[in-house]
Each structure stands twice: as C-alpha cells, then as structure tokens.
C-alpha cells in the first residue's frame, strides 16, 4: 500500500549523492571536467567528452530554458496525479536535466520559456524543479 502514497524517490549512489546533498542545501550543481572544462549531467565516473576522471562539482545559476516538455494527462503513479509537466531543461551553463515545470498552469508552459530552479522538499529529499522566470518576483 505504501506504493499508493509514497512518490518515487531518488536512489542516490556514490556518484549522485553529492548532487542530492547540494539540492538539500538549495544549490544546483553539475560536474566540471578538470581536463577539458566540459560541464555535464548526470554525474558520472568520467567526463563523457574526454574520459578524464578528474572532476569537481560546479554550482550553477539554476536558470535556463525549456528545451521541450510533455504534459501528462494520465496518472502513472498515484502520488503524482495528472496534469503535470515533465520538461527537459537546458541550463544556461549547458547541461540538461529532466525535471518539472511548476508555478504556472501546465497549459502555459512553452518551449524556450525562461525558467529558474525552485527547490521542493519531498519525503526527505529536495527536488530541483523549475518555475517561469518572469513569474517569480514575489516568490520566496
């Protein structure tokens, strides 16, 4: 029955743990290759461009744009009821990540819309979701 009420949660491993810890502290971080300066997500054991294993975390602005999005009209998991928007966010610094666009009606989301990270706490984790940049003046 717990499946009905508990949303899917991250399953951090040794590579992704620092990403989720930074989120808890309201910082969005990517991996920076020390050899070729490539910035990448998701965290991995080596730079996907040059295979160097020397990397450091880099905190990014949390701003970017909606590269594309999908508006779910079906509920796949009872803890995540439709409608909701899954988006591929392209950060200003380059890396992309899958997330949600929140803080506006699903019908208002557009490709290329400017967005900014909004951290939301869910069952002991902090998820980096995104909200429209122009509508955040009064928010937190």
């Amino acid at each position, binding site marked *: 029955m717990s499946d009905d009420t508990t*949303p*899917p*949660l*991250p*399953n951090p491993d040794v590579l*992704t743990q620092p990403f989720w810890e930074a989120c808890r502290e309201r910082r969005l971080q990517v991996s920076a290759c020390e050899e070729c300066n490539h910035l*990448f*997500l*998701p965290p991995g054991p080596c730079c*996907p461009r040059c295979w160097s294993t020397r990397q450091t975390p880099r905190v990014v602005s949390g701003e970017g744009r909606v*590269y*594309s*999005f*999908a*508006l*779910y*009209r*079906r509920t*796949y*998991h009872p803890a*995540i009821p439709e409608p*909701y928007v*899954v988006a*591929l966010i392209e950060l200003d610094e380059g*890396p*992309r*990540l*899958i*997330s*949600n666009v929140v803080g506006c009606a699903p019908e208002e989301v557009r*490709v*290329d819309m400017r967005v900014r990270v909004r951290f939301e706490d*869910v069952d002991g*984790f902090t*998820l980096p*979701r995104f909200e429209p940049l122009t509508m955040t003046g009064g928010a937190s």
Partner: protein
Amino acid sequence: MSRRAVITGVGHTAFGRSTDRSVSELETEAALSAVEDAGVSPSEVDGLLSDPGAMQGVLDGITPHYLRLGAQLGLDPDYTGSEILGGAGSVAVVERAVLAIEAGLCTTCLCIYADSTTSVKSAYRYGRGDDAVYGFFGAVGLHALAARRHMHLYGTKPEQLGEVAIAARAHAARTPHAQKRRPIEMQEYLSSDPIVEPLRKLDCCLVSNGAAAVLVTTEERARDLRRPAVQILGHAQAHSLCTQAAPEHFERLPAARCGPRALGQAGLGPRDVDVALLYDCFTIVVLLQLEDYGFCKRGEAGPFVEGGRIAPGGELPVNPSGGLLAEGYGGGMLHVVEAVRQLRGEAGERQIPEASVALVSGHGLGMNTHATLVLGR
C-alpha cells in the same frame, strides 16, 4: 560456395490482446510457420537469435530468452543469443543472423520476436532511474518531448501526426490479420484522449501478445527452396546512448546516420525505396524517420504526409500492413515479415505493384537504438 545470406521464410501468430495462449505457444507457432514457409526441416536450424521484447528479465528472471526458446524447440545451435535493443532488436537480430551466416558461424538461422505485453505492462510504464521522481514515466513521455520539439521548430500540426495514424488504419483495413482494421478519420483522431500531450491515444502503438519469426539462410541453400529468396541489400545500426545529454537527441534519430550507410551499401538512395517499413511506436517517430532517411527534408515531414502520401496508393506507402499502430505490436519483426511478403508479391489486396526495394527500420528504448535493413528481390 556462396555465403551470401538471404531471407527464405517468414511466419507469425495472430496479434491481439488475447491471453488465451502462453508466450511459449506463440513463439513455437511463429517458429514453425517460418520453417514451413521456407520449406526447411527444423533439424536444419543451426542458429537461433531472439528479440525478447520487454520479457527479458521480467518473465524469464535470470534465464536468457534464447535459452528457454532453444530448450522448447529442442535446438542445440552452433550460434545463439538475444538482442536487448528494445524496438531495434528484431531488425538487429536479422542483421546479426546475416553477419553470422556470412561469417560461416551457422547456415540456417531462426530469428524470433515474442512478447506478452499485456502481462508485462509495467515494463512499458517504467520510470527512468531518478527521473521517475518527476513523474517521467513510459515511452510515451519521451516521445512527447520529441513531438513537442518538432512542433516548436517546424510548426508541425496535430493533424499531421493524425495523417500517420489514419494511414496506418487505412493500410490495416486491407490486412486480414491486423488487430485494428476499422478506418478512422481526422475528427476521430483529434478527439482521441490525450495521454501525454501533444500525443493522443491514437498516436500510440497497440498493446499485443504475439510472436513473429524470420528464417535466414545462405543463397545456395535457398536456391532449391520453394520461396523466392529475399536479398539483403544493406544493413547498418547507429545509436544515441546519452539520451538528453546528446545535443540533437529529441530532434533527430540515429537513423540519420545508419540510413545513408545501409542505403549506400545497396547503391541506392531514398527515392529508390518502393515500400518503407518504419518502426512506428508513436506517430512522431514516423515523421522523424521520413526526414532522417531523406524521404523529405528536415522539418518537412508534416507537410510530406499530407494528402495521403504514405497511405495506400500514396507515393511512398509506409507500413502497408498497418504497423505497430494498427497491425499489432510485433516488436519490429512484423515489419520484416511484411517487407518480405511485399517483395515476394504475396501481400494480396495491399500489394504494392512492382515492389522491389524495401527499407525496414527498428527504433528502441529511450529513442536510443536504431537498426536499418534494405531488402530486395
């Protein structure tokens, strides 16, 4: 002695939502029908390759699909294996059979796709690792990203996706074994339930239980068989494994890389293709492939499919048996089967006159894998 590989037999079960029969029974029926179609004895089969669909690791636990399959068919082959390439798996196993035969590893290779999608539904509703926390479930969500991107870049309209769904049903109406034979019109498409916008229910492939098989052997062995051999004119694969980290992942399929290579081996171009069997898990994938294979220019697939161009009687008939959208979810192996029937001139009411070159594609996982076969008479 020629080691050139050819396709000499095809077969499949009925496809549908019925769960009256076990996957094992379905696989066996498909295997038998391909062997009988070719007119070879089961004892000649010395290669066994499989595309287990979503069953791998689900129904079979730690038992590889080929192991269970081989045991039930009583085979001790010289060459075997299963491909885990999602929807590219069936085209890829036929290609692998060609490679194995031409390398002398085996002579007569049975390629089988089987799945029980109604009983392993959860496998198609999976979340992708930590991305599941955002509700990113199912293959439809991934393809919705591609569809939205195409609409944004090129102004592609829902009605143009609808043309693909309507054409599939029109083809299936001429296909006696198709799962959805009732034609649809645009109004029905547009009022179809949204699943993950911009994709509607009628943009999505069917859910089917069934099995299909293709028998590959040497040109020399095929010479005395009763069916005309279908030639392998070209084959290639290309993959995009980084998903969203790959710059063009949701705009262009790896077909843009392996399509020209496969056609180039045949000394052909897209204009030489008489019939295209394009993997059609979602309507958007057909539009992307029309561009990636060079049937039209980038961004022009929407207008290209208007006016019935890919429908029965159109300039480029796509999936004349109805494909995954209407014939049944056959993993991609049914696409190979239909290509063979068209090239042999056995497709009945849906036969494309003088079909002599067929292009068959497979596309899989998170838009990650792609395989192409170019077949000829």
